[in-house]
């Protein structure tokens, strides 16, 4: 059964089309890497799966009561705003599905428990990404959407993020990840989707 699907979807902002005629189905157990050049529409495709980009044409179907975890490309996380890593992770359980993991458990999965009380805005880029991944894991998501979660992240943090994704895939959850490093994920990806020149294509199929 599809968790989420785009059918002949035209995606863009303020009436300007970025991707035309997108067809993509994401099922349980899928691990999809979205690749392509900068400006090719990878993030737009991910946001369309999330539902935060209104479609210009076509349709998006999502399973009822779908639990989604989302990790953005980067988070400004201004230093002066009074929210902690704990607050950021807790938000992952504020949806209709509630929280399947405690904040401490989620932070433990990304090896960041020690920074729970730190202001989110004072964390490094890699630490922020791990906090956002912990937030995405709190609701035990059926579908995990990640937009370049390891950009600007050191090797150790990358390994922690990839381990968490591998756990998610092993547990039967679907993962869609925008990445410039598909080779690093080759061991787990079941499909690779390319977003380029306003179109999406599926150039390779890899058995897990």
């Amino acid at each position, binding site marked *: 059964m599809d968790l989420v699907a785009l059918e002949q979807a035209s995606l863009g902002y*303020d009436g300007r089309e970025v991707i035309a005629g997108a067809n993509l189905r994401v099922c349980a157990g899928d691990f999809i890497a979205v690749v392509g050049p900068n400006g090719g529409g990878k993030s737009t495709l991910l946001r369309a799966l*999330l539902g935060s980009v209104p479609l210009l044409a076509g349709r998006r179907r999502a399973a009822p009561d779908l639990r*989604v975890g989302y990790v953005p490309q980067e988070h400004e996380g201004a230093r002066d*705003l*009074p929210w902690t890593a704990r607050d*950021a992770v807790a938000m992952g359980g*504020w949806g209709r599905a509630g929280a399947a993991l405690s904040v401490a458990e989620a932070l433990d999965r990304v090896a960041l428990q020690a920074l729970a009380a730190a202001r989110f805005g004072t964390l490094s880029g890699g630490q922020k990404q791990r906090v956002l991944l912990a937030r995405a894991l709190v609701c035990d998501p059926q579908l995990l959407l990640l937009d370049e979660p390891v950009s600007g992240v050191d090797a150790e943090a990358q390994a922690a993020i990839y381990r968490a994704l591998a756990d998610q895939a092993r547990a039967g959850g679907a993962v869609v990840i925008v990445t410039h490093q598909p080779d690093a994920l080759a061991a787990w990806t079941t499909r690779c989707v390319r977003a380029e020149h306003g179109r999406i294509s599926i150039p390779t199929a890899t058995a897990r």
Partner: protein
Amino acid sequence: MRDYLELFGLSLLASVIAAPVLALCGALLHLRREAFLGVAVPQFATAGVAAALWLLPSFPALHRSYLEHGHPPMLYLLPFAAGAACLALLAYGMRASRAPAASQLAGGFALAGALAYVFLARAPSGANFAETVLRGEVLLLDLHDFQALAAVSAAGLAFLGAFRRTLLVGALDPEQAYALRMPLRAVNRSLPMVLGAVIGCGVMTLGPILVFALLFLPPIGAALLTRGLRVFLFVTALLALLVVILAWPAAILADLPYGPTAGLLAGSFWLLAAVVHRIRRS
């Protein structure tokens, strides 16, 4: 004490009811990084109040009601409408992207300020109004004002409470709200109306100086003293309550208008918070 409460009880109660609601609205604007709206909306609402006073004599029945019983509904409707117009201008500015939205709002702020003074100059009761409400003399609050303020504050607080999670996630990370399937679009559409009503009613009854002070100063002071979201919101509301309560004896002792006294007190708390923050960091 009894005399004091008889004289100021209604006004004191009104300021205690409105203060945490206004401060929480300000905290939300602070988290959304839209604090400039806290300046612009009261200014637009003030222009709405002035326009209502200017138009009143054109409606004899309403004018008579104003002179005999206090504020007719039009005096509330126009500030609400003006506050909502301000937020609509911002939304239009953000969508049209011809100039930075904040710059367009700043232009609107300047225009609203000028219009407020022109309307007041032309309104028969404008000078009297400017002398009382615009200076924050909440002593003159009547029962109608109190009822309107209490009802609007309660409605505003109910909205903030019911949608607190959506509002907080929408302020700090809007896309996360979609992942959590929160009704962000609907809440964002309602927010300007709620802020317009709370701030517009505050300007109408408490005056813009007190509204400015309660919207801005408690949240930025609390942000310096706290780390987590819950504590930040609690300290914001607490500071606002302390300001409006302590401003009463301070205004009486110093023989100053209430609004500016509360503003100075809130500013002192902010300064104190900044000092504590600096000491902690060093």
